[in-house]
């Protein structure tokens, strides 16, 4: 039962609680199925345990209740942060993936062992972990229609040396240089990467880069230096680079394009991840391309296959980004009435597009652009709107509560929309939404469907991005106060990039499928999955 990561032993209670937390209902058939699977697992565990007992160093009893693989239990990562939400699955870092069920049970056992000091030394029974582990721990694995083994991605486990070792090994195999973290990390965020812009990812790459396609190296540099920033821009640039890669690709002899090209793309994606963590939109674009590549029939000739892929990429951009923007603009313009005062935050390409379109359609409104350090992206939004002819006001985020009485609507862009309805966007967005809610100003989030993500988050700590802390340093009148921040032991600089806004603060999400409430995001996701 290698695929039933879900049903590795949680009792009925745990199952229901878990499911409740996800807002789904378990049918009777599902419950029965789960029961059956549990029984089958117990049997398979017995078999595996017998095998393991031979390898076991510990002299423990080799009877029916064979010990769990103690070494792997000890290796399993220590306290996963408590506020992790439901469907963040149990991490199985150091445990072999052929025994997912076992690992989940081991983790539960370990957790109990920590609670119960005596049990930590004894061998735990197979059946017990299942029933007693489900003491409402919020770390139950996700239950979807198809039980899928989900792993915590390595980029939120940076403080775990085993994960880092694994990553280093993987990068070494793919011949990509490992980018080292920089500076002191604030303890709450020590599980995230923090890179410095002064140490570019190309430092250890050979100059006529042979391992990585030049278009990808260029793209990675542009990401890490911030030249291509913004969810849509990054996706479009990524697809452009992939088009170059596909154009220059030749199938090696005795290989199939559908398999080889996907393998060729993997190191590129690792490299881009090293330059800057991938965004949700980029992740979806990559999934799409990989699917398209694997769907190429084997008898297709190379030229034809490449042309097919190039057209499908062009189709994706046209439909998911360009036409989606047009559709969203069309819907949003209905929401903009004459005399409106619209508040925007930062620079969202979609919101700028909407406002420019509305201006073209002769709507009379004015815009208040809210900006924040250190990125000061609002200046770019301001430039584009003023160039169009829209009358704008510019404030910093600290003045938001002062100008909100004037505002009639708030338009926000999104980096990603999470499966529980939370909006992940530039840091500061949740503040704006909060204050707007306090003033009863409607908040409208504009987001294309290709940015919808199956992740679930309820806070901004678990998964985020740390930008270069030196960006926070500013020189005024010749003095740089924070220049020596690394020498001060108790000082840490934190430059967060994203935050999540709860759906209670968002009144409407405008997507290319229409205007939906925030809580309907999982529906859209499900529909998308069924489609594909």
């Amino acid at each position, binding site marked *: 039962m290698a695929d039933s990561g879900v049903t590795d032993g949680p009792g009925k209670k745990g199952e229901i609680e878990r499911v409740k937390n996800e807002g789904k209902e378990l049918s009777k058939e599902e419950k029965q199925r789960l029961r059956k699977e549990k029984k089958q697992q117990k049997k398979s565990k017995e078999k595996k345990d017998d095998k393991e007992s031979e390898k076991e160093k510990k002299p423990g009893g080799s009877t029916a209740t064979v010990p769990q693989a103690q070494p792997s239990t000890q290796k399993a990562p220590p306290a996963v942060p408590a506020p992790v939400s439901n469907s963040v699955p149990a991490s199985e870092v150091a445990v072999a993936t052929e025994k997912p069920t076992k690992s989940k049970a081991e983790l539960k056992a370990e957790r109990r062992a920590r609670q119960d000091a005596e049990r930590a030394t004894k061998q735990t029974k197979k059946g017990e972990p299942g029933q007693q582990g489900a003491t409402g721990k919020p770390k139950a694995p996700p239950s979807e229609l198809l039980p899928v083994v989900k792993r915590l991605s390595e980029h939120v486990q940076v403080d775990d040396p085993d994960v880092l070792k694994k990553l280093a090994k993987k990068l070494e195999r793919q011949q990509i240089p490992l980018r080292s973290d920089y500076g002191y990390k604030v303890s709450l965020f020590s599980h995230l990467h923090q890179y410095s812009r002064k140490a570019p990812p190309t430092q250890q790459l050979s*100059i006529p880069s042979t391992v990585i396609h030049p278009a990808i190296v260029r793209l990675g540099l542009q990401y890490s230096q911030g030249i291509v920033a913004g969810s849509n821009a990054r996706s479009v640039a990524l697809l452009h680079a992939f088009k170059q890669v596909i154009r220059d690709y030749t199938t090696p002899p005795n290989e199939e394009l559908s398999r080889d090209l996907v393998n060729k793309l993997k190191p590129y994606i690792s490299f881009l991840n090293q330059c800057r963590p991938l965004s949700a939109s980029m992740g979806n674009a990559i999934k799409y391309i990989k699917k398209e590549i694997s769907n190429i029939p084997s008898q297709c000739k190379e030229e034809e296959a490449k042309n097919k892929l190039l057209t499908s990429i062009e189709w994706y951009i046209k439909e998911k980004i360009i036409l989606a923007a047009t559709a969203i603009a069309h819907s949003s313009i209905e929401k903009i009435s004459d005399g409106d005062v619209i508040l925007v935050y930062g620079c969202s390409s979609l919101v700028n597009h909407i406002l420019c379109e509305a201006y073209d359609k002769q709507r009379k409104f004015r815009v208040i652009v809210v900006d924040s350090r250190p990125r000061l992206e609002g200046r770019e939004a301001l*430039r584009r709107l003023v160039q169009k002819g829209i009358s704008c006001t510019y404030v910093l985020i600290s003045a938001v509560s002062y100008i909100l009485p004037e505002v009639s609507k708030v338009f926000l862009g999104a980096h990603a929309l999470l499966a529980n309805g939370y909006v992940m966007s530039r840091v500061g967005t949740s503040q704006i939404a909060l204050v707007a809610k306090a003033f009863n100003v409607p908040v409208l989030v504009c987001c294309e469907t290709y940015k919808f993500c199956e992740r679930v988050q309820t806070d901004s700590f678990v998964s985020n991005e740390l930008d270069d802390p030196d960006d926070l340093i500013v020189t005024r009148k010749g003095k740089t106060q924070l220049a020596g921040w690394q020498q001060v032991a108790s000082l840490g600089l934190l430059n967060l990039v994203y935050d999540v806004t709860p759906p209670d603060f968002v009144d409407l999400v405008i997507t290319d499928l229409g205007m939906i409430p925030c809580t309907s995001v999982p529906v859209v996701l499900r529909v998308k999955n069924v489609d594909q």
Partner: protein
Amino acid sequence: MELQAVLMAAGGGSRMTDLTYNTPKAMLPVGNKPLIWYPLNLLERVGFEEVIIITTKEVQKMMSMDPKIKVDVKMKLDVVCIQEDGDMGTADALRHIQQKIKTDILVVSCDLITDVALHEVVDLFRAHNATLAMLMSKAHEFTETVPGQKGKKKTAEQRDFVGVDQSGQRLLFMANEADLEDGLSLRKSVIRKHPRMHIRTGLVDAHLYCLKKAVVDFLSENKSISSIRGELLPYLVRKQFSKTANYEKIKDDCEDQTQKKSSTDDEVVISSRDESLLQRAQELSCWNDHRGDMSEAYHGGKLRCYVHIMEQGLCCRVNTLAAYIEANRLAPKLFEEPAVHPSSVISERCQMGSDSIIGALCQVADKTSIKRSTIGNSTTVKEKVKIANSIIMHGVAIEEGCNIQGSVICSNAVIGRGADLKYCLVGSGQWIEPEELAVCVCIYMCVCVSH
């Protein structure tokens, strides 16, 4: 393939004829390695596997015989020979090898000794999709007395004026003092786009350029440009701000004959496939390289020139005698090699300073003192010789009791017993009479001075 390396080694060394009348500049020994070895080593360290070397037949012959190059350099060297008469400029040479060039190129000069992190220059070229990215360094004053010159005669070096923008990376203006008649004039279009410009004069051009392939194609159409540094670079820097630079945007999508026509009108055509997609990504991105005005990133210009200015580190161009001496002192510090070659025989009673290096197969006798000097391969130094601040090339024989200070002795020379040379330059194969005293003299062409 991303970049092709082109090494220009056909230069004659016109500013140090004393050294180069016998040995071509590319093969002059610096720190007991031929000068051309340094840029080759730089390229090899960074990861190049092939280099196109443009040079003369003589240099090619010497390179094939030189042990250092044959053994140390693992890259594939594609040597292209050109005539030695010196009429061919660097741009002419690029035109000559146009058939071999398939991608963007990295042009290096053979007389560059540097420890720059090359990725800094190439990253500018990649990240900003630049047409030109070059390397410059802060110039250092040469403090050593130059042999053969009486007194510190400073030749009136023509200054280079280099204008960069606020970030110090974008190249806005480049002119040599010789080209400016009575003043430095800046175009209004430049100042309108970049109101803050830093103009620097104390910079040394390292002659390391990353150029787009379109530039090479442009060169093949415009046969009037013959030097990269003298003509092509100022042209590219000026063209960044010309009105037609914005014209390119309109013609972008069509990759047909109309663009070829415009290229003959002195246009460097920069376009790539899927240009519209790249343009769209730039429009969607919330980044701008400047602020304060209403224009988009890069002011909508397609042609961009960037420069990386090295503030620290070694970057030295060996094109004058003073630079040659400086290089001999600094170059050995770049590499962790033993000061004394293992095959040399040095007697115990020889006082060798830590700054000196001794080449292969040398023989140094007792009671000698060697300070801050470079001694080449197969040199014999007899007893009671004092060598200070000097450069001795290969195959030199120095008899007993000589005193050599601040001098340069070229290969295969013989210094007679008891000779006293201060700040002299002894040419190749010369023979200095015993008991000779010479101060600040260039000795070549069989000129002997006896006292």
